């Protein structure tokens, strides 16, 4: 009896595999076609001098990687990316926590909560064009408002010192609602009884934020930071659309906004060196892996203080 039921059980599992295969197939095809094959191909291209136009290339070993060592454009792009990530993640995280706490503690309105997501729903290119328009020196509403309070108009996207803070602010505006929503979800996991206890003990709202909310939010915050930093390091769309200017190349002025993703794109498409671009992409992957690993380790993302 037991034998028989065991056999029929295993048969069931075997049949299950078949069904599972057909269910998995669509995403498996997507994975292989759009992820696995391009990744392996990219890995291979990094060791060639493949040319986009001629569609041929030769194996050149580690030449592309050696070239990276002396590439001042590359080190500049990494430095610019770092500046961007620090400004973007710094402002975005602080504002998002503030919004999330307010959504949790101040309002229960679904309408207000939905409105926060609107910027995130807009396509990146539209966001870039909208802000190029609003920040224009002559026509832009922002400079007009600055004029009212006596500040001279600012060339937000064509000044070397303003361009990265400007792009960082635009992306902060775009992603703060989404990030706030993630943190807001994290806040729901904190038991309300803790706040009640705090209130009975006479703690102020700020004290409760510092002593209860922040420590208990840490695992969620760690996850949010991993997601947003990885996303932030891959900034491309807004810079490519907003920083070209007239007769300039995106990434300007004077390389001030040439982030590493843009440099990879330009190396592949504009300078027609996809092999070298693939090598830089591998470097970026390595950097992202190290950053993510360190973050998860340092922020102890796996454990909670909620004893």
């Amino acid at each position, binding site marked *: 009896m037991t034998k028989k039921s065991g056999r029929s059980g295993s048969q069931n599992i075997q049949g299950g595999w078949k069904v599972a295969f057909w269910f998995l197939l669509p995403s498996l095809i997507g994975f292989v076609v759009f992820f696995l094959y391009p990744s392996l191909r990219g890995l291979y291209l990094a060791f060639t001098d493949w040319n986009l136009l001629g569609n041929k290339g030769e194996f050149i070993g580690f030449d592309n990687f050696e070239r990276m060592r002396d590439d001042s454009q590359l080190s500049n792009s990494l430095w610019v990316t770092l500046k961007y990530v620090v400004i973007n993640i710094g402002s975005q995280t602080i504002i998002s926590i503030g919004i999330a706490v307010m959504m949790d503690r101040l309002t229960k309105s679904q309408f207000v909560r939905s409105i926060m997501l609107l910027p995130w729903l807009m396509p990146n290119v539209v966001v870039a064009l909208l802000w190029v*328009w609003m920040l224009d020196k002559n026509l832009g509403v922002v400079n007009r408002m600055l004029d009212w309070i006596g500040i001279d108009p600012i060339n937000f996207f064509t000044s070397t010192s303003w361009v990265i803070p400007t792009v960082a602010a635009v992306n902060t505006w775009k992603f703060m609602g989404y990030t706030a929503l993630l943190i807001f979800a994290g806040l729901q996991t904190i038991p309300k009884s803790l706040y009640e206890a705090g209130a009975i003990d006479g703690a102020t709202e700020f004290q409760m934020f510092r002593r209860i909310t922040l420590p208990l939010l840490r695992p969620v915050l760690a996850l949010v930071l991993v997601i947003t930093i990885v996303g932030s390091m891959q900034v491309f769309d807004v810079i490519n659309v907003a920083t070209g*200017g007239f*007769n300039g190349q995106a990434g300007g002025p*004077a390389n001030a906004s040439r982030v590493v993703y843009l440099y990879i794109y330009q190396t592949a498409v504009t300078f027609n060196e996809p092999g070298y671009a693939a090598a830089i992409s591998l470097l970026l992957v390595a950097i992202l892996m190290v950053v993510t690993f360190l973050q998860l380790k340092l922020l102890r993302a796996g454990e909670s203080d909620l004893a």
Partner: protein
Amino acid sequence: MRGKTFMRLFALLLAVAMVAAACGSSDDGGTATENDGADSEETTSDDDGGEEEAMDDDDGEEAMADATVIDYWLWDGNQQPFYEQCAEDFHAVNPDIAVEVSQFGWGDYWDGLTAAFVTESAPDVFTDHLARYPEFVDSGVLVPLNDYVDADGLDTAQYFPGLAELWTSPDGERYGLPKDFDTIAMVLNETMLADAGITVDDFNSAEWNPTDGGTWGALVQKLSIDTNGVRGDEDGFDASSVATYGFGLEGAFGAFGQTTFSSFAASNGFTAVDGVWADKANYADPALAETIQFFADWIAAGYITPIEDVESLGGTTMFQGGQAASQTNGSWMISTLSGEATEFPVVYAPTPVGPSGARASMFNGLADSITTSAEDPDAAWKWVAYMASPACQELIGAGAVVFPAIPSAAAIAQDAHAANGVDVSAFTTHVDNGTTFLFPITDSASRIEEIMGPIMQQILRGEVKAADVLPDAAAQVDEILAR
């Protein structure tokens, strides 16, 4: 309550979508500009293109059955109607070959072409640019034309001297037949000139030098007016609050400065590269540093438009908007500058005579190239040869958009401009007097641009001194050319 919230959200989303749509349509105007042979103002071209295409379909269908179809690309919308006319005339002579003309904005054009080569859907024939074709030659995607030229006995001496040679690689292979040329001249706001008591003759005889700007500089100073109405040559001129700049940059400088610094640097004795396909450039030449530094100093002094404004607004827009009293620009912009978009009378003067004792203008020409993707290269050659023949070029010339490469056709263009009341001799004087220099052709133009462009931006912003940074940049450029 829930329904109401949803409706509000929906209304907001709709509003966002509408803003998005509005932004999308303004995209074309904002991005498709580059200081090359491209006409940035694609005036009315889209409408024309649509109608023409619709018309093509009618007689196209009968021809389509057995005719070879040549796919032809160009980027200048202003010229599209005239090339479509050429295509029709060509089809009348060669009933077995039909030509389909497609137009793309300058930026989309080159990215689209690269993508088309990779996906093997490239056009049979396309308008080629000197800055780009060496990279195509390197990649082996262009058909050499020598055998065709020899077989047809085509006379390459029928074009303006120098134009045909531009399209020949160091190994003697020809990759394009010249279709037009362009030169640079000063563009002047006649109303502002009159207000300052300056005539176009003053500019015709002006001399420039990088030390104090010469008589040209004095004119530019006089044309500059601050917000208190004080002119640049008067005491108390406030450089921090300028209403009208005497001279406006056409765009960012880039490596070659076709419409910006090239005329000035060349009249100061600078040549970017030694000959065509050189493996060394001269960016360390002090003559260049002096010229670029002159522009940076005069921007700081309030006589020339700040580069930040030029990059965000566009140099031609600033000129047309009255923020600059003059600029240098290319001959392909004449119809735009003298057209309805400019609300004041415009006159042209040659670029000033420099320390070398002569004027200078970059001499750039476009050509048509055949791609290796062409299914029927013989038919493609017939179309290219037709476009490079007097029949088509005279038609183009009558359109008064560009100067055709054949002198007789160029004369027709000059007459057509004169009939419109525009004197274009400021542009043609360079060809008549031999004061042109050739567009620097190298096989790494985009890489050089990547090095020089940002450095020029830094110099013009006053962040660094030209003499300090150009030698290092020159070394990087030479390294690329030697590779």
